[in-house]
Structure formats: structure tokens, C-alpha cells
């Protein structure tokens, strides 16, 4: 076994940490407050190649592994979860299915600008009545000559509104349920494709979450990823990888909150000594640290399996489940250690606590992760 990062992975971690602390950190609270993302940060991330870490150089990426991707995601989330969400949704949920299921022409047309950060990507999967049950999508795609006509809505779409390229999972034959699904690439400004309301959220408030509306939206057949009937399969494979980045994001949020709490416990004095001198605080910190390390190991292990080309459905689910619950637990403790100040927006831990909650919900709730894990161990 080898738990040591490579020199490149170490340098990547340090680079992204510096970038996040220097460039994103000073803006995080304000972006959260205004519920708006500073897209100049996107341009900087694109310049650094954070928008296409895992894709081969020939498709505009950096040709790095999933461990690197997980490390970068963690470091972004440690400072600002919203930034990690923007990158993760773009990379795992939009660029990746195009890379894995698209043909060469689609990769050149869509993946290259996505990986280079010239375009922002999003995945349109969730619908008002199809969340975790992705096979139940209703958004219909009806063939018409060389095109398909899309009708329906997608909801809670991360990077929606701002995104340029959307992978949209549709139903081509409702009778066949999940076997009657397909995935299309739809570009912003395609006639008939508009955005509904912007969601106002508890956390990750700087990231955009929009409703997508398709009204007789004509999409050419050549925009279909894979073949008709593969929509559900593509969605599931996409979420497998996506879970690794959500796990990494959860670890990052927890790490950020833990570091804040650790530092604060050493400077905050009550009854004439720092609160870190109290065993009650010490045990909290010890538990926070231990859980984060466990979550990180699960996350990096699932990234390792993916890099090795091995099945990691169960491991990704475990990592995402544990890291998300760890993140929620740790951030609540961090707020507790900060006391009244933790509840105030003067300090970042309350933001981190709000940001952590979504990791237990999106890309499969914790309950769904348990189902995935149970299905794997009981079969």
C-alpha cells in the first residue's frame, strides 16, 4: 500500500490551496451574501486549467488523474464550497459524460471548449418529480426528421442560467421507463430553451441553481450522446464519478471549518485560558480531525479505484455518504466552538455549516447512498 501523494499531486494541492486562499477567500463571504458568483474567478480557474483537470491534453485538459481532481476540489471547498460546486458540476456532470459517451466530433465541439474553460457546463437531470429516481424523467424528446423536439422542465440545475453547454437527460419512450431515455447536449440560446426561476438556497449560495425550460426545443440528432436508450446508463455512470467530487467537496468544507475552529480555540480565552485547554473542546477537535481523515481516505480510495479502472460504485457511495455526514457534523461542531461568534456572519463557519448540508442531498441523498451500498453488499 502507498498513501503518499506524488510530487505532482503535492504541487497541485499547494497551488490550488494558494489560489483558493489568495483569490477566492477574500470574496467568499460577499459572494455568499449576494448570492452571486464572481465569474472573473472562473476565468482565472480556466487559465490555470482547473476547468479540465481529468481530461486528456488533446481535449484541452491537463491529463491528470481523479486523485488530483479530488484534491483540487477539496482545496477549493476548504475555502469556498460554491467555487468547488461550479467546477465539480462543470467537470463531473457535463464534461465527463461528453468525454465518456460522446463521439469524436462531439468531443471536439463540446468537450474541448469546456475543458479549456471557454464554456461552462451543466447537467440537466433532476425534474420536479424525478430526483433520485432518475429513470422517471418526463422531459420528452420526440423525433422529427433529423432532430428531436424537447418539451418539459428540469429543476435545481447547478450552473444553470450561466452555463453554455447542458447535458440533458430525456425520455424518448415513456413506456420503456429508464430504457427509454437518452442524453442530449443542448447549447444555451437554442430556440425553445429558456431558464426559469433562480433558486434561493440555504447554502452554496454563490453557485447558480436554475430551472431549465424546454418548449418545442429542436435539438439535432447528432447532439445525442451514445445511442437512444442509454440516457439512464449515462446518468448513473456520471453520478458514480460525481460522487467522488461531492465527497471531496464535503471533506474540503469540513477541513476548512475544522481549521477555523482549531485556530479560534487557541486564541479565544475564557476564564483566563484558551478554550482549547478545556477537554470538552479538545475532544470535539480530536473527533473532527479523525472523521475528516477517515472521510478523506474513503474519498481518495474511490478516486484511486477510478484511476485504476476498477468498479467504484459502492466505494464512491460510501465516500460520499460518510464525507457528507462528516461535513455536516464537523461544521456544526465548528459553529459550536465559535459560540456566538460562530452564529454571526462575521466568521465563515456559519457559511460552511450551511454549505455542508447540500452534500447530504445532491447527487444522491444519504439515503440513496445507503441503498446503493446495501444493494452492493447484499447481492
Amino acid at each position, binding site marked *: 500500500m502507498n498513501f503518499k501523494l506524488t*510530487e*505532482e499531486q*503535492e*504541487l*497541485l494541492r*499547494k*497551488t490550488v490551496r*494558494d*489560489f483558493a486562499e489568495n483569490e477566492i477567500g477574500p470574496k467568499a463571504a460577499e459572494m455568499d451574501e449576494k448570492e452571486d458568483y464572481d465569474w472573473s474567478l472562473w476565468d482565472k480557474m480556466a*487559465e*490555470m*486549467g*482547473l476547468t*479540465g*483537470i481529468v481530461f486528456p*491534453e488533446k481535449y484541452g485538459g*491537463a*491529463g*491528470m488523474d481523479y486523485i*488530483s481532481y479530488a484534491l483540487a476540489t477539496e482545496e477549493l471547498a476548504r475555502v469556498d464550497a460554491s467555487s468547488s460546486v461550479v467546477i465539480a458540476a462543470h467537470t463531473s456532470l457535463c464534461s465527463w459524460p461528453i468525454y465518456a459517451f460522446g463521439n469524436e466530433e462531439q468531443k471536439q465541439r463540446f468537450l474541448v471548449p469546456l475543458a479549456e474553460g471557454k464554456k461552462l457546463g451543466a447537467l440537466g437531470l433532476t425534474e420536479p418529480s424525478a430526483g433520485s429516481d432518475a429513470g422517471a424523467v418526463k422531459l420528452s424528446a420526440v423525433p422529427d426528421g433529423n432532430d428531436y423536439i424537447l418539451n418539459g422542465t428540469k429543476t435545481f440545475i447547478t450552473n444553470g442560467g450561466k452555463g453554455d453547454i447542458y447535458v440533458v437527460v430525456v425520455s424518448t419512450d415513456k413506456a420503456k421507463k429508464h430504457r427509454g431515455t437518452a442524453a442530449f447536449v443542448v447549447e444555451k440560446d437554442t430556440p425553445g430553451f429558456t431558464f426559469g426561476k433562480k433558486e434561493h438556497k440555504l447554502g452554496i449560495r454563490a453557485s447558480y441553481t436554475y430551472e431549465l425550460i424546454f418548449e418545442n426545443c429542436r435539438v439535432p440528432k447528432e447532439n445525442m450522446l451514445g445511442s437512444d436508450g442509454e440516457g439512464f446508463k449515462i446518468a448513473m455512470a456520471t453520478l458514480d464519478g460525481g460522487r467522488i467530487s461531492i465527497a471531496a467537496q464535503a471533506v474540503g468544507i469540513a477541513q476548512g471549518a475544522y481549521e477555523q475552529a482549531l485556530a479560534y480555540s487557541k486564541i479565544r480565552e475564557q476564564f483566563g485560558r484558551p478554550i482549547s485547554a478545556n477537554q470538552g473542546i479538545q475532544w470535539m477537535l480530536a473527533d473532527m480531525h479523525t472523521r475528516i481523515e477517515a472521510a478523506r481516505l474513503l474519498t481518495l480510495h474511490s478516486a484511486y479505484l477510478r484511476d485504476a479502472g476498477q468498479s467504484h460504485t459502492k466505494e464512491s457511495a460510501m465516500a460520499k455518504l460518510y464525507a457528507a455526514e462528516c461535513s455536516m457534523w464537523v461544521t456544526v461542531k465548528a459553529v459550536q466552538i465559535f459560540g456566538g461568534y460562530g452564529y454571526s456572519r462575521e466568521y465563515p463557519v456559519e457559511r460552511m455549516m450551511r454549505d455542508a448540508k447540500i452534500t447530504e442531498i445532491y447527487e444522491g441523498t444519504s439515503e440513496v447512498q445507503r441503498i446503493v451500498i446495501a444493494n452492493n453488499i447484499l447481492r
Partner: protein
Amino acid sequence: MKIVALVKQTFDSEAKIALEGGKINRQGISLIMNPYDEYAVEEALKLKEKHGGEVTVVTVGPDEATEAVRQALAMGADQSILVNPGTEDIDEYTTAKILAKAVSGLEYDLIIGGFRAIDDGSAQVAGRVAEILNLPVVNMVTKLEVDGGKAIATSDIEGGSAVMEVPLPAVITAQKGLNEPRYPSMKGIMQAKKKPLKKIGLSDLGLDASQVAAKVKVLSYSLPPARAAGKIIPGEPAEAAAALAKALREEAKII
């Protein structure tokens, strides 16, 4: 043009310094490229982008200084040399002698380094290198242009700044404000591992330890006495401000 960038690996500026056995404890300290050297590397890369050529990074340090060198390569430097002096007992004289010897084996139009390192803050290595190589030096440069065998450098001087013209080759040291160093790109990080990183020792340069022996001898290390926290002057802002003025006058007798 051929540019040599001198870099040093230093403690992270956030590092907590502790003593162990009368010396600085290096355990668990995270190491970074000296921030002033980052300005130097960035400027070298900008000049290369503008005029063509190549950037060679040279450092003196233990093997772990590889990390700082890799960062420079990931930023875009072409090749690098790390000279391990084989001892920790070195001073600015040692470092300058080694750097000058290593650089003298290269072709160069410009040598650029940070004007000081944030660890020992001595601000003398680059100047010493210039003296050994008999090159002119311009320190604390905040703006640099290279044109036809000469450099125009704006440098900090007492009470202002001066615009200096200097023929190349020359030594330039970077002051904060010269540029904003780029972050290594992801592609750069991947490419860095394929770029030449020559690790050598003193004998590879034809030097022996006595020729570069430190002139300075450190007698003791200590931690600064903690500044005792003073008093918080209570009251509403206006009230406290008045009390403060009084305390500075009557108690501290300083105004």
C-alpha cells in the same frame, strides 16, 4: 534571451517557529518558494515570452528544495539545477559562491533573483553573485524592460525610486510590485516532471567544502520574548480615545 533565475526554498511565512536542542526545529514546517523569488521567476518568464529564449532555475539547498524548483518549472521555466551543498552549515557567502560557480557554467544574458529571502532576510546573495561574476547589479527592482543588450530597471532608492540603465549581462533583484506571479497551471504541473532537473553536489562544480566554508558562525538561537499583552482601554469610542491620548502622554510619556 537566456535568463537564469535564482530561487530559494524557505519556510512558509505562516510557519510556527520552535526550538529543538538549541536549533530551529524543521519538523512539520511547510516549505515554499521564497515569495521574492516567485517575482523573479515570473519576470524571467515574461521576458522569455516577449523575447524568446529560455529560463534556467538554479537553487542551493537540500534535496527537498526540489519542490520549489518543480514549482518554477511548472510555472514555465525550462530547466533547473539544484546544488546540494551537503551541509546545513552555510551562509550567504557559501550560497553565493556555489550559485556563481553553477551559473558561470551556463550561458546567460540576465540573472534575476528575489531581493531578499523571507527566512533570514539578509538580502545579499544576489549582490554577492554579481560581485563574483563581475556583473553590474540593480537591486529592489519594481519595473524591468530589456531592449537591445541593456536593461532599464526602476528600483527603490532612499526616499523614492530611480530609473537605471544597465548593460547586459547583469544581475537584477526583484522587489514586491514587479509583477503578480502566475500560479502554476495544471498542464504546467504535468509538464514539469518531464523537464530537466539536474541535482548535483559541490564536487560536480569542481568545488570543495573549504572553498565555500561559511564566514558567519551562529552562536545561539532563541525565541523573541513574548510581548506582554497590554491593557484594553474601556469605554465608548470617544471616551476611550480621550483616555488613550492621556495614557500616551502621562503614562507612556511618548507624546
